[in-house]
């Protein structure tokens, strides 16, 4: 295992980060001016990193595929952001947040990383308030909190149902300020399509200008990937249409390890699929489970009457409702973690109790909250979510319960990074959802925003110095270096090849088919046979794609089809690796539910003998199977136990 250098500092857990910071190299202000950093992504992770690095004096170039950094998909986060402030005096602490996150992740993350995350969480809230984030407040003027799944305290800060938007506007403001000052060069509508590695070190990227179609070279002393998650492998997800895995995947092909790719989060409360024309799924925030109660009818005849429209959900009396989460998990009730809630919904629907025509929906009911708190309080808390729901579903959730069903939401897997957030390619860093680091096999609600901002504001700006301190004598790499020329040529050839197939079927056709394979065989419930088949199915689909896709237009113009085709080409390969990773991990943990490994009452059954590892996949050659390396997870402070939310 000697090839894995996770660089976790020694010493007691609570001292590791402090000690580590004290030992990190620092680059002088004069030298920072000589160093260039590329940041790919402008979500919470990328925007916070870009602005913080520029404030320190580095020359930053920042990329996003949207027309503005403010549109990165962090903007869509609704519910909130965690921090261990203990403002509620409910006995919260850094240690408790750490424990909840480790346990929530089903003991598949690194202790040291998670502890650091909990430690810097409080600074994030201070920073965001200073930027003018209008968090919800009590009448006394102090910050308000709400509860999220997997925790017994109230530590989630929020700005109505638009927390991600407000945090992103804060980070975007900081970034825009640096753009105005000339310290950040912003390349919007640019998509990274390759990583350039020279002498084993990350030295730049190849990006396509999405307006002109030009393929361009960019060099720097270090590259930071902050491109979010790859959940769109499933076609239907709560991600944005353009969210993609290509930056991660191209880095992988250049030698970066991808870790735990099979760990995806299925969010329990999304608006159900309406039919074949569906293009994406909309989340209804987890915060709704604070006040909403989840149920399906107890009696099959009620289910049938509901499906026929013979009865309204609100007409079903309380005694005929099965509040299955409260029944199965009395301690956490409706606030069990996401993986548990999702599987419980699937269990009821598989048993035939799904409440809509497709049989794939359960109710989330606010009747009780409205009675307890009054409509105006519920409206103040969730008004925008209720409005969103009504516009999509055409049902008023103040009067009738919402219908919800699980959907793909977040990817815990991603680029492997060490404690400094550097990948195994020196000079290549990964932050935010794009890395694998902190959430183990299941992420707790309100912890992704926390992690993205922790990485960007308070970790990377320190740890990148350790690498960059060794670079001060080196000039900015020349974009005419043969590695740049070759990478550019490779991207252009890939794109041209896609255009020249001139087949019969649009890109979306293949993407939808891939999504079906993934959802059915590498989704909420997995087994050996299914995942083995999935690998085969994907291979066939991929070869069909490369023979029969039709991509109209040219590479050298604004062309949304080539954008999609390049992403989908990578999704096949990512999907395959996800299935392989899931197959390899013959235990259930968190969101990874292996049917071969369950307890008597149908819960995930971890196997710590074989499962205490992070998987690191190393790309070999196109036709050679990737190699699996395992980083052992060592728990010095936490005792491993079966998760119980009963």
């Amino acid at each position, binding site marked *: 295992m000697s090839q894995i250098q996770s660089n976790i500092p020694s010493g007691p857990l609570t001292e590791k980060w402090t000690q580590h910071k004290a030992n990190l190299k620092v680059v002088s202000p004069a030298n920072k001016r000589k160093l260039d950093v590329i940041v790919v992504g402008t979500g919470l992770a990328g925007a916070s990193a870009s602005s913080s690095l520029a404030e320190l004096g580095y020359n930053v170039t920042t990329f996003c595929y949207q027309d503005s950094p403010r549109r990165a998909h962090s903007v869509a986060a609704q519910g909130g952001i965690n921090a261990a402030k203990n403002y509620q005096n409910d006995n919260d602490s850094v240690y408790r947040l750490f424990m909840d996150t480790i346990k929530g992740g089903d003991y598949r993350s690194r202790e040291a990383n998670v502890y650091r995350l909990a430690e810097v969480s409080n600074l994030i809230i201070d920073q965001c308030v200073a930027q003018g984030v209008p968090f919800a407040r009590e009448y006394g003027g102090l910050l308000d909190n709400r509860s999220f799944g997997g925790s017994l305290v109230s530590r989630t800060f929020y700005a109505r149902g638009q927390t991600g938007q407000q945090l992103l506007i804060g980070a975007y403001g900081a970034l*825009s300020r640096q753009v105005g000052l000339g310290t950040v060069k912003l390349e919007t509508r640019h998509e990274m399509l390759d990583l350039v590695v020279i002498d084993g070190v990350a030295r730049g990227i190849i990006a396509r200008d999405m307006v002109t179609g030009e393929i361009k070279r960019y060099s720097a002393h270090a590259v930071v990937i902050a491109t979010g998650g790859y959940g769109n492998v499933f076609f239907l997800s709560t991600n944005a249409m353009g969210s993609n895995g290509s930056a991660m995947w191209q880095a992988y092909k250049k030698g970066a390890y991808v870790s735990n790719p099979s760990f995806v989060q299925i969010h329990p409360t999304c608006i159900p699929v309406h039919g074949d024309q569906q293009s994406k799924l909309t989340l209804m925030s987890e915060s709704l489970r604070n006040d909403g109660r989840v149920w399906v009818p107890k009696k099959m005849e009620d289910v049938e009457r509901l499906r026929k429209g013979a009865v309204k959900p609100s007409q079903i009396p309380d005694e005929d409702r099965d509040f299955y989460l409260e029944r199965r998990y009395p301690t956490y009730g409706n606030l069990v973690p996401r993986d548990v809630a999702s599987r419980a919904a699937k269990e009821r629907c598989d048993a035939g109790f799904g409440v809509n025509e497709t049989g794939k929906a359960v109710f989330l009911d606010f009747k009780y909250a409205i009675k307890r708190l009054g409509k105006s309080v519920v409206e103040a808390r969730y008004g925008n979510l209720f409005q969103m729901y009504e516009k999509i579903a055409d049902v008023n959730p103040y009067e009738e319960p919402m219908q919800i069903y699980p959907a793909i939401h977040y990817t815990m897997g991603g680029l492997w990074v060490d404690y400094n957030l550097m990948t195994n390619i020196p000079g290549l860093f990964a932050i935010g959802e794009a890395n694998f680091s902190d959430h183990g096999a299941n992420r707790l609600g309100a912890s992704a925003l926390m992690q993205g901002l922790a990485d960007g504001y308070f970790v990377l700006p320190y740890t990148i110095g350790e690498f960059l301190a060794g670079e001060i004598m080196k000039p900015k790499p020349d974009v005419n270096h043969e590695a740049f020329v070759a990478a550019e040529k490779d991207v252009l050839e890939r794109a041209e090849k896609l255009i020249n197939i001139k087949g019969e079927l649009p890109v979306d056709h293949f993407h939808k088919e891939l999504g079906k394979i993934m959802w059915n065989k590498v989704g909420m419930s997995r087994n050996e046979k299914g995942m083995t088949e999935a690998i085969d199915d994907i291979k066939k689909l991929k070869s069909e794609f490369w023979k029969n896709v039709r991509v109209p237009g040219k590479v050298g113009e*604004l062309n949304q089809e080539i954008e999609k085709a390049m992403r989908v080409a990578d999704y096949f390969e990512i999907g395959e690796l996800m299935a392989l990773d899931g197959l390899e991990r013959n235990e259930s943990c968190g969101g990874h539910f292996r049917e071969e490994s369950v307890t008597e009452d149908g819960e995930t059954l971890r196997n710590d003998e074989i499962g205490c590892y992070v998987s690191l996949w190393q790309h070999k050659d196109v036709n050679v199977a990737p190699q699996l390396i395992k980083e052992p997870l060592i728990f010095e402070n936490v005792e491993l136990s079966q998760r119980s939310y009963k």
Partner: protein
Amino acid sequence: MATDNILKNLILKVWRQASPKDKGKFVTYTIQNVSTGSSFFEMLDLLNDDLIRKGDEPVAFDHDCREGICGTCSLFINGKPHGPDNLITTCQLHMRKFKEGETITIEPWRSAAFPVMKDLIVDRNAFEKIIQAGGFVSVNTGGIPDANAIPIAHDAAEESMDAAQCIGCGACVAACKNASAMLFVAAKVSHLALLPQGKTEATRRAKAMVAKMDELGFGNCTNTGACEAECPKGISIANIARLNREFLVAKFQD
């Protein structure tokens, strides 16, 4: 969920323009079997699927989150920014708002400050420049006092949030006969000025942003209220009044 029906036939008049220099024109398409439960973009996906299979060029349009929050989507639908429904973006518009056989006219935002790049996609970079001129609180990362050190009145935070909800889509500019960006600027100025953190540099911010807006060729505000009526987030023109009252007065005092 409400029960969905099928719209058997719709007629689409879509603005097609190959590039910024191209003159552009409307092209009429018919489209079949659209579910009323589909979103407007799912209907356009269907159109594009059809066009690609037939060997035509699909229609380019901007979209990303498809849930009304990123502000990427635009579109003038039947003469209204973000279409016939209220308080939503185009991506939240659903086909149940349309009738069997209806003709739907689809255009890009029309404003000199937002030039068309292709078909329905416009360039909104001007908004970026306005924000870069001052749409932030000038604090660096780190060295910040505890978040609860400054209490902020509940109502001030709420009022600030009302303005902060702006998604920067540009519907206000598209709706305005003068192509003014005042609602966009006023929302940002209000969001920050209503909070103590943002108050310190409020005047400077307002002046810098307004100056940039003027420089970029946005029109003057003549209080028609069209922006408020079309804003998908319901941002109030009271913000414009606040901007005028509190900050632009200062401009003349300099």
